[in-house]
C-alpha cells in the first residue's frame, strides 16, 4: 500500500511538472463541455445550403422556398438541374431540390425530386426528412384548402336538399289530390244513358198519348228529342270527361310513383350526407394524426448526446492516457531501476492504473459538475449509479490502453494502435452510424463492444433514469470485459519484462 501511494505520488508529480500535461488534464474536459455545450445545445440544423432548380417559378414554389428560409436554410437558386446536382457533389449545397414543370395547386404529375449526398448519411437523412416534412406540410396546407371547398359544397347541398325533399312531398300530396279529384269527377258524372233510356221510354209513352193533345205531345216529343239529342251529346262529353279523368288519374299515379322514387332517392342522399360527420378539411387530409412524442423530457441535441459524450471521453481519455503513461514509464531510464527493486510488478501495474483512474475521475468530475451547474443537465438523481458505471467503464478502457502500452515498443505505434482501436470501437457502435446498419454477424459482435455497452447503460440511466438492477446484463458484459482486459494487461506486462 505504501509503495502504491509512492508510485501514484511519483506519477502525479511527473505529470504536474509537465505543465502542458497538467493543463490538458484539467482544461480538456472543461473545453470539451464548453464546445459541445455551445455546439449541440439545440435541436435544429444550421448552416444548411439548399440548392433549388425550378423550370417555372410560381407562387407555390416560392412559398415552399420561403418556408425553408424560415428554417434558417440558405437557398441557392440554380439555373439548371445539372448545376443543382453538381452543387451537392461539390459540397456547395447539402441538398438539391428540383421542382417539376408546372407545379401548381391543381397538382403535378411529376414529383418534386431531392438529390442528397448520402455519403453524409446522418445529415442526408435528417435533411431529407426535414425538407420532406416542409414540402409535405405545404402540400397538406393546399389539400386542406381544396378539401374545405369540397366540404363546403357538400354542406350546402345538405342544407338545400331538405326543403327540396319537402317540396317533393308536397307535390306527391298534390298528385294524390288530383287523382282523388279525378275519381270524384268520374263518379260525379250522372249516368246519362239511364236518362236517355228513361227519355226514350217517355217518348214511347208520348207516342201512345197522340190521341189526346197532339200538339202538346208533338211539342213534348220535340222537347224530348231535343233533350235526347242534348243528352246524347252530353253522354259523349261525359264519356270524354271520364276518359280524361281516368287519364289524369293514371298520369298522377305515375307522377306520384316518380315523385316517391325521387323522394326516396333524395332521402337516401340526405341520409348519406347527414352520415358524413367530417366537417373539417384537416380531418379529411390527415384522418390519422401523427404526433412523435419524445420518451425523454428534454429536446436539445446535447441531452441526447451527453451519455455518448461521456462514453467517448472515457474511451479516448482512458485508452490514450493509459497507453501513453505505460509507454512513457517503459521508456523512462528509471524503468530499469524499478525492475531492480523488490517491489512486485502488480504494484507497478496497480500504480499506473490508479493514476490513470484518478486523472480520469478528475476530468469526469469537472465534466459532471459543468453538466449539472452550467448545462443544467438533470443527472443529480442518477449521479451515484452513473458514477459507478463511469468508474467501471473507465477501468475497462484503462486496462485496454495499458495492454496496448505494454504490447507496443514505441510511443508512436502505441498511440497509433490506441487511436486505431478506439476508432474501431467507435465504428462498431452507434457513434458514427446506427448499430442497426451493421450486418447481422458484426452487429452481434458490436453488442459486446464495451463502448456500446457503457454508452447504452449511461443512456438508460441518464435519459430514462433506469435503475442499476435493470442494466445488470449489460453491467455483467462490462465486468467480463474488465477481467479480460486486466488479464491481457498483466500478460502483456509479463512479456515486456521477459528475459530474452
Amino acid at each position, binding site marked *: 500500500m*505504501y*509503495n502504491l501511494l*509512492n*508510485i501514484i505520488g*511519483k506519477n502525479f*508529480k*511527473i505529470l504536474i*511538472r*509537465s505543465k502542458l500535461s497538467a493543463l490538458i488534464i484539467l482544461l480538456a474536459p472543461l473545453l470539451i463541455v464548453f464546445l459541445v455545450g455551445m455546439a449541440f445545445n439545440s435541436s435544429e440544423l444550421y448552416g444548411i445550403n439548399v440548392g433549388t432548380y425550378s423550370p417555372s417559378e410560381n407562387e407555390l414554389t416560392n412559398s415552399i422556398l420561403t418556408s425553408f428560409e424560415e428554417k434558417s436554410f440558405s437557398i441557392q437558386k440554380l439555373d439548371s438541374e445539372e448545376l443543382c446536382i453538381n452543387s451537392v457533389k461539390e459540397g456547395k449545397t447539402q441538398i438539391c431540390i428540383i421542382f417539376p414543370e408546372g407545379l401548381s395547386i391543381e397538382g403535378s404529375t411529376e414529383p418534386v425530386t431531392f438529390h442528397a449526398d448520402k455519403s453524409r448519411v446522418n445529415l442526408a437523412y435528417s435533411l431529407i426528412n426535414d425538407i420532406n416534412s416542409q414540402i409535405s406540410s405545404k402540400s397538406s396546407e393546399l389539400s386542406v384548402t381544396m378539401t374545405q371547398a369540397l366540404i363546403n359544397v357538400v354542406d350546402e347541398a345538405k342544407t338545400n336538399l331538405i326543403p327540396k325533399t319537402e317540396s317533393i312531398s308536397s307535390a306527391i300530396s298534390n298528385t294524390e289530390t288530383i287523382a282523388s279529384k279525378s275519381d270524384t269527377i268520374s263518379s260525379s258524372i250522372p249516368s246519362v244513358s239511364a236518362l236517355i233510356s228513361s227519355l226514350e221510354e217517355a217518348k214511347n209513352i208520348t207516342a201512345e198519348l197522340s190521341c189526346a193533345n197532339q200538339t202538346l205531345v208533338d211539342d213534348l216529343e220535340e222537347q224530348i228529342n231535343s233533350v235526347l239529342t242534348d243528352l246524347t251529346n252530353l253522354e259523349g262529353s261525359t264519356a270524354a270527361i271520364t276518359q280524361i279523368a281516368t287519364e289524369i288519374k293514371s298520369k298522377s299515379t305515375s307522377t306520384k310513383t316518380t315523385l316517391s322514387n325521387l323522394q326516396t332517392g333524395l332521402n337516401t342522399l340526405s341520409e348519406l350526407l347527414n352520415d358524413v360527420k367530417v366537417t373539417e378539411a384537416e380531418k379529411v387530409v390527415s384522418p390519422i394524426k401523427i404526433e412523435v412524442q419524445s420518451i425523454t423530457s428534454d429536446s436539445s441535441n446535447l441531452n441526447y448526446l451527453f451519455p455518448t459524450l461521456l462514453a467517448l471521453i472515457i474511451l479516448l481519455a482512458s485508452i490514450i492516457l493509459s497507453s501513453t503513461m505505460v509507454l512513457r514509464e517503459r521508456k*523512462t*531510464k*528509471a*524503468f*530499469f*531501476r*524499478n*525492475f*531492480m*527493486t*523488490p*517491489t512486485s510488478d502488480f504494484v507497478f501495474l496497480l500504480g499506473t492504473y490508479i493514476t490513470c483512474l484518478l486523472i480520469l475521475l478528475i476530468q469526469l468530475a469537472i465534466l459532471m459538475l459543468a453538466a449539472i451547474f452550467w448545462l443544467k443537465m438533470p443527472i443529480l438523481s442518477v449521479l451515484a449509479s452513473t458514477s459507478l458505471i463511469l468508474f467501471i467503464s473507465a477501468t475497462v478502457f484503462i486496462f485496454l490502453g495499458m495492454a496496448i502500452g505494454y504490447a507496443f515498443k514505441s510511443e508512436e505505434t502505441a498511440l497509433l494502435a490506441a487511436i486505431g482501436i478506439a476508432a474501431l470501437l467507435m465504428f462498431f457502435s452507434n457513434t458514427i452510424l446506427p448499430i442497426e446498419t451493421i450486418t447481422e454477424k458484426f452487429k452481434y459482435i458490436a453488442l459486446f463492444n464495451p463502448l456500446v455497452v457503457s454508452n447504452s447503460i449511461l443512456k438508460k440511466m441518464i435519459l430514462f433514469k433506469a435503475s442499476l438492477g435493470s442494466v445488470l446484463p449489460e453491467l455483467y458484459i462490462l465486468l467480463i470485459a474488465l477481467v479480460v482486459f486486466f488479464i491481457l494487461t498483466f500478460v502483456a506486462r509479463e512479456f515486456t519484462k521477459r*528475459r*530474452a
Partner: protein
Amino acid sequence: MDTELIQLKEVTKKFGKNVILDSVNLSIPENKITGIIGASGEGKTTILKLLIGFYKPTSGEVLYLRKNVFKAMKDIEKCFGFATEDGSFYNKLTVRENLFYFARLYGVKTAKIQDAVEDIINLVELPDAINTLAEDLSIGMKKRLDLACSLIHDPKILIMDEPTEDLDPLLRQQMIELIKKIKKQGTTIILTTHLLNEMDHICDKIAILFNKQIVEDGPPAKIKKKYGQTTLDGVFKKIFSQRVKERYQEKRRKGKERQEPEEKGPFPSVKELKEVLGRR
C-alpha cells in the same frame, strides 16, 4: 582465498542469431572491485545485466552465492545496486524525491529513509542539489545521483556500468575517489569501462572481454606482468593484436586448405580485419 560471490559458468548470450557472449567464465570475489574491460559493444553491459537476472543466458548459468540467479531473485533485488551508464532515475523529480522514491521501492524502512537519504547525499556530495530537478543537474551530478539511487538501500554488491563515461578528467578522478570510498564501506563493486588505465588504480581484479569471450582475468599487476606491459592499455593492445593475428592466420590457413593460391603479405587488409573482427 577470496569468496566467490558471483560466478558465470559457460555463459552464452544470443539476441536472435547475434552472439553477444560466447562461453564466458568469470568469478566475482566478495568485497573487491572487479572491472570488466573491453571495447565498446563487446558485451560488457550484457554481462552486468546477466548478473542481476535482467537477461536470461542462452546457455550456461549465472550463480549468486552458488545459487542460480533466477532462484535468488529476492536476494538479488535486495542485495544489488545498479548504477547505469545513462542514469536510471526520473528527470522530473528532484534529487530528494528520486532518493525517497527508490528508497521506498527498495523497502527501506520509513523511519530510516530520511537518515539514509542524508547519508547517501553526503557520500555522493550532492547536498546543495537536493531540491534540484534531476533534469537540471550536470552530467557529473547525474552520475552521482544515479550512484546514490543505487546505494540508497545499502546493497552488498554495487554494479557500475561505465561510471566514468562522459566525465572530464577532474570529475573522473572524483568518481574514482567515490568508488574507493564505497569500497571502504565493504561493498563489492563490479564495474565496466573502456578507459583501461582507470582500472589500474582501483580494481582488485579485472576481466578482459574480447571478441565475445573473457580472454584474461586476474589482478591487474599479474596480467600486466604476464604480457610484459606497464599499463592495461598496453595489455589490451597486445591482446588485441595477438588475437587478430591468430584469427587472421587461422582464416588464411582455412582458406589455403580450400584453394587460396594467391600470395599475401603478413598483415591483413581492412576488409579482412573487418571479417576477423566480425560484427564490429
